[in-house]
């Protein structure tokens, strides 16, 4: 089985988010980039499945050359090889088109993503890849098992969860619970330096949306401290001052 794991390169979760003066660029100075936390879960499960069922794991990223450190980390964790589609991501449709193209021309039967990236938060890329390939997509997948050609997954739904099955090929978006993220060991780190990282050029894709600008959410006014003895007033206060309850 050939497994493709989609790795998005995102700011560390503690990073301060700042933008350029024209509000169009995220300022990367002093920001550490990491594998998107959900993608680490997807990668860990891919490695487990390849070990159990036989197969290979390829990590793919759509990004410019600055993402290579993150891709190497995926190799250190255990991906067998990696691909970088050489283009700054424009929108989810652009990214999904690149990955769908690579997956179909190279015969991948399982594509694993995270359920959401920490920068775009769209939860769109996996579902778009699946639609482009005309295969099932299971987003918010908390469990994934493969027997032969059949996948069994558990997915989160409104107010509960569901067990579903489908045949491969499949695109899944990993939620917490699918696997424990793996920490690279020294041998993995050494090996990652010589594992193949292929760079491919992007295919042409229509522009459907463009970024106008970023802004930061409004900051709250100063906190009002309530004397622990006056707690009984809290809800009346919220009602009169904020009118939301």
């Amino acid at each position, binding site marked *: 089985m050939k497994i493709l794991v989609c790795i998005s390169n995102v700011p560390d*979760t503690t990073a301060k*988010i700042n*933008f350029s003066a024209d509000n169009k660029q*995220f300022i990367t100075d002093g920001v550490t980039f990491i594998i998107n936390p*959900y993608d680490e879960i997807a990668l860990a499960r891919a490695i487990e499945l390849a070990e159990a069922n036989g197969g290979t794991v390829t990590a793919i990223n759509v990004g410019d050359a600055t993402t290579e450190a993150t891709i190497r980390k995926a190799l250190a964790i255990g991906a067998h090889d990696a691909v970088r589609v050489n283009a700054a991501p424009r*929108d*989810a*449709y652009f990214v*999904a088109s690149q990955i769908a193209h690579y997956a179909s021309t190279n015969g991948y039967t399982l594509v694993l993503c995270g359920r959401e990236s*920490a*920068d*775009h*938060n769209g*939860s*769109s890329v996996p*579902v*778009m890849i*699946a*639609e482009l390939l005309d*295969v*099932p997509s299971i*987003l*918010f997948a*908390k469990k994934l098992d493969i027997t032969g050609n059949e996948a069994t997954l558990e997915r*989160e*739904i*409104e*107010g*509960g*969860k*569901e*067990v*579903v*099955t489908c*045949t491969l090929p499949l695109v899944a978006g990993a939620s*917490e619970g699918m696997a424990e993220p793996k920490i690279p060991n020294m041998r993995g780190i050494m090996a990652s330096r010589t594992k193949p990282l292929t760079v491919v050029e992007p295919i042409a894709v229509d*522009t*459907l*949306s*463009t*970024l*106008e*600008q*970023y*802004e*930061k*959410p409004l900051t*709250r006014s100063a*906190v*009002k*401290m309530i004397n*622990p003895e006056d*707690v009984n007033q*809290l*809800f*009346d206060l*919220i009602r009169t001052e*904020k009118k*939301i*309850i």
Partner: protein
Amino acid sequence: MSVLIYAEATQGGFKKSTYEAISYGVALATKLGVDAQAVAIGSIETAALVSLGNYGVKTIHHCVDERVNTFNPIAYASVVAQAAQTAKANVVILSASFSGKGLAPRVAIKLKAALAENVIEMPDTSSGFKIKKGAYSGKAIATVSLQSEVKVISMVPNSYKVVENRQTASVNQLAVAFGANDFNIKVKETIRSNDKVALPDAELVISAGRGMKGPENWGMIEELANTLGAATACSKPVSDAGWRPHSEHVGQTGIAISPNLYIAIGISGAIQHLAGVSSSKVIVVVNKDPEAPFFKAADYGIVGDAFEIVPKLISAAKTFKASQN
């Protein structure tokens, strides 16, 4: 031309987030000077269907087929795309719920439409079509310009008010040409949690962290939530330790929520936690440490021991509720 709203049904009826999506879609249709129509899927009572007219839609496209009685993103996308074509929709609106997120990107691809996810406001249509959406896990807002002829929008639950606007709605039976692979996903089992209020669209949320010391102390958190009719949530270490289920974990790597009121008890306010809750309209923080970072992100703060403050909050909530009846 029209705005088409996906009227997401749960167990045969509609939730508040569906009415929010409809209210948003109807307001947008008015702004664009076009019709508002809805599409609903699966077995839904006629009374419930027609009640969508109370929020301003005039036509409801309904797809009845026993194969679509459970959520299946592929087949559902075929239905919504078909309805969009029938309604000649230029904008399709969905709620960014678990299933809405699984559906919207497929619909966008089928309609060759630009997709704006996690939308929080009406678009600016004065020149082009510009719309605000969440980015960087709650730490920023992005304005994107949608350039395609058809647009798909998924909106954050609780970000738009339900508005009544009584119309008489007619129901159109929608015949859908399903694709060969549309039913490749089979639902084997559905496990419903017995939470009274589902977290993603709750208006009031009581959340607790490691300051509660252990799972045995959650009784008072649940009592406070029950008294107010709130959902319960928790910080990541609490669900990691198995004190609470993962479905309650809020934050950057958990669920992002934007309730009207978020009460955080014994949670320090780490940046990853704040990422998922900072769009709550009002935040109350209870922490015994006056230096806890969460106070900087709060509207109201109470410094004190949760084991003393929460019982007081419970009795305050009871008095408040009683005063409302």
